[in-house]
């Protein structure tokens, strides 16, 4: 896949605080690249640097092989931006907003009319075009926020957490729209801290934490990396406990955490050792209340890579 955007050794410090630590990645033409990470991971800083709003301390950003610093205007012409906060004039109609923001990309006359019409229809707001934005629901405003970003037919759409604080129905509409954008040939760079969104739309994922890229790949690849393991969660009857050390004698067991009657065991996939684990618990005089095993998900990938849950 041809690279549309290429980022090399990007770094940014806020005073003493290193926010981006020499990260490198690329966005392939036609893909939906999800930048996933908890709040404060460095996602928005990365996006704001890519949009030319924030100065970087180091690194190179190239678009279609050309450094953006020398071609900032033509680079921005090819971008569509859906900011995290709603960037709309509340006192104006949906159409007036879309017309204004599209005109900033140089469209005028019949081209502007057609682009606005298409974008409002795409966002499902054509019938509310003359209504003031302040009368819209949160979901409708989010959809208009997207319409204003895509009306000029950008090559790369940058979306910074576009579904924050909206109802599930509107979120589904937006996620479906993003997939449609990809089908229409647009490339999408999408930041979020919602795993389920990444699961649904991503072509590729970059997991970022503390300003560093900690994993990169398709969701299948990332899951596969931890598919070599399986996890057991064992809940003991009240008052029972088993020391963690004993489980390491069982073949395949890699990691054990035991606390307050709950035991989490990470074991090598393919080694059948559950009966041995159960025996060990029974021999220790403890009684099991519940056992479950966990399939790999992006949540577990993230937990394994960072040691914390995504919304921590």
């Amino acid at each position, binding site marked *: 896949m041809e690279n549309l955007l290429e980022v090399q050794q990007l770094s940014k410090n806020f005073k003493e605080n290193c926010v981006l630590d020499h990260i490198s990645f690329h966005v392939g033409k036609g893909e939906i690249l999800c930048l996933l990470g908890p709040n404060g991971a460095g996602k928005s800083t990365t996006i704001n640097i890519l949009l030319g*709003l924030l100065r970087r301390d180091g690194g190179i950003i190239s678009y279609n092989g050309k450094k953006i610093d020398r071609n900032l205007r033509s680079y921005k012409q090819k971008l569509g931006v859906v900011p995290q906060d709603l960037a709309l*004039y509340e006192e104006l109609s949906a159409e007036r907003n879309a017309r204004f923001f599209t005109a*900033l990309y140089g469209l005028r006359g019949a081209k502007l009319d057609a682009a606005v019409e298409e974008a409002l229809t795409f966002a499902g707001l054509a019938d509310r075009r003359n209504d003031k934005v302040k009368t819209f629901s949160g979901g409708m405003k989010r959809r208009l926020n997207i319409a204003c970003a895509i009306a000029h037919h950008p090559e790369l759409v940058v979306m910074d957490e576009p579904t924050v604080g909206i109802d599930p129905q509107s979120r589904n509409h937006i996620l479906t729209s993003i997939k449609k954008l990809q089908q229409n040939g647009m490339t999408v760079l999408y930041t979020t801290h919602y795993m389920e969104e990444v699961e649904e739309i991503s072509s590729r994922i970059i997991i970022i934490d503390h300003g560093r890229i900690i994993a990169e790949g398709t969701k299948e690849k990332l899951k596969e990396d931890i598919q070599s393991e399986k996890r057991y969660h064992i809940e003991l009857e009240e008052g029972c406990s088993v020391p963690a050390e004993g489980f390491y004698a069982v073949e395949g067991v890699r990691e054990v955490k035991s606390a307050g009657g709950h035991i989490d065991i990470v074991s090598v996939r393919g080694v059948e050792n559950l009966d041995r684990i159960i025996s060990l618990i029974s021999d220790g005089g403890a009684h099991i209340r519940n056992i479950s095993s966990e399939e790999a998900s992006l949540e577990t990938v993230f937990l394994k890579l960072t040691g914390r849950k995504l919304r921590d």
Partner: protein
Amino acid sequence: MYRFWQIFKMDLGNNFKNPILINYNTVFAIAMILIMGYLSSGNYTNGIDSYNYYAVAFLIFGMLEGAMTATNCFMERDIKKPNLRILYSPCGRFPVYFSKIAASFVFDYVLHAALCFVFVPMGINLGGWNLGWLLLMMAPVEFASAALGVLFCCIFHCEETASSILSLFVSIFAFLGGAFFSLDGMGAALAFASRLSPVKWLIDAFFAVIYDGNLSVVAPVLLISTAVGALLTFGCAKTFRTEDYL
């Protein structure tokens, strides 16, 4: 130019849709002139009466307060977010701050010029045909005020801070300049302090045109305020950073 025009139209429209800004520049100004004119009617007996004095004084005060229109236009909370989208576009930095200066200037100038035309039928003396010279002198002063408002936003990165500091400065200048009452008869020290205020210079220049028909003050006012406006705009160009908008 097309893009700048789009932004300018939007900024100007937003100003004219703001009832607080419109009322502050019109109804409030007239009310203040009537109240202050009535309260101090006994203090002005010869030549300029109190209504005539406060009409000019508050007109000039309002022109300097125009800086607050610009801070509102540039960084008001509800406007700042959509303004950010302008920065995402390929317009560049210049149209972002300069359209705010231009839109605030036009907005304030139109309202204050309209005030002048309201004053005349109210019996306020604005110099007859010399009103044209007053309107000419008002333009670069309004522009410099708007540029000052935007510059303060660029420096302080926050509308509230910029407006608070500007308001303080303008009020001090207005007080010293005699916008609320003349300090000329209150001792040599206050009279000297009064002469340091641009409000005083402008009041004197306006009265020179209105009552003496002295047009020699027009060129200095035009030149100095144009130079100040240009300098402040240059300051905006130097201090405006897109990250301050985030």
